[in-house]
């Protein structure tokens, strides 16, 4: 299991190498990048703020839950960026390897979906005409 929270650019190639396993024929990965627009507004940049110790603890818990749900999981890699990001920058990568492909999709999706619900990381979007803490208000 390789879990990281970093203020440096995420190296996708390295992340995927960490997910490889000679006993696993299937690697599924999800990469979240910064889009140029959000709910119709043009995004200039993003700031990601994290509660570091809790974020790492929760990321590890999510990865462990996935390993319990899919015992055939071989490698689990989750790397989340923090700090200032621009359009096209990688915010998060999740990569998992399994012997068979259906489980690689299910486990990867479970991890990113759960991450987005429980990991204490906050995204502030900067538009040409203002800012928003994403999801903060109903």
């Amino acid at each position, binding site marked *: 299991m390789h879990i990281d929270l970093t203020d440096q650019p995420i190296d996708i190639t390295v992340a995927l190498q960490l997910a490889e396993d000679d006993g696993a024929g299937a690697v599924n990965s999800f990469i979240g990048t910064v889009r140029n627009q959000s709910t119709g507004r043009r995004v200039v940049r993003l700031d990601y703020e994290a509660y570091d110790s809790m974020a790492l603890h929760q990321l590890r818990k999510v990865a462990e839950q996935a390993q319990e749900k899919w015992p055939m999981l071989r490698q689990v890699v989750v790397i989340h960026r923090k700090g200032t990001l621009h359009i096209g920058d990688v915010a998060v990568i999740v990569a998992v390897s399994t012997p068979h492909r259906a489980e690689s999709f299910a486990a990867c999706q479970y991890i990113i979906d759960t991450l987005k619900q429980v990991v204490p990381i906050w995204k502030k979007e900067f538009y040409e005409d203002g800012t928003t803490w994403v999801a*903060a208000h109903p």
Partner: protein
Amino acid sequence: MKLTIALFGITREIVGRPTLELTTPDGHSVQNLLAELRQQYPALGKLSSLAVAVNNDYATDDTALHERDEIALIPPVSGG
């Protein structure tokens, strides 16, 4: 007892600083804490959700707080 509450994201902006110190009775619950904070900072009550973390895990309403706990307010997360 004295509690130190870490603030992140929009809660940090609402309160205007990264930590908050409160003096409360021993064994004060999460529910009590949230009620007090919402009274003191009404903008906290307008968030989509507001959780409390104790020692890096989500606490429930009836979790009792202690002086050495690492306590944080968790506004709606938006990682990923």
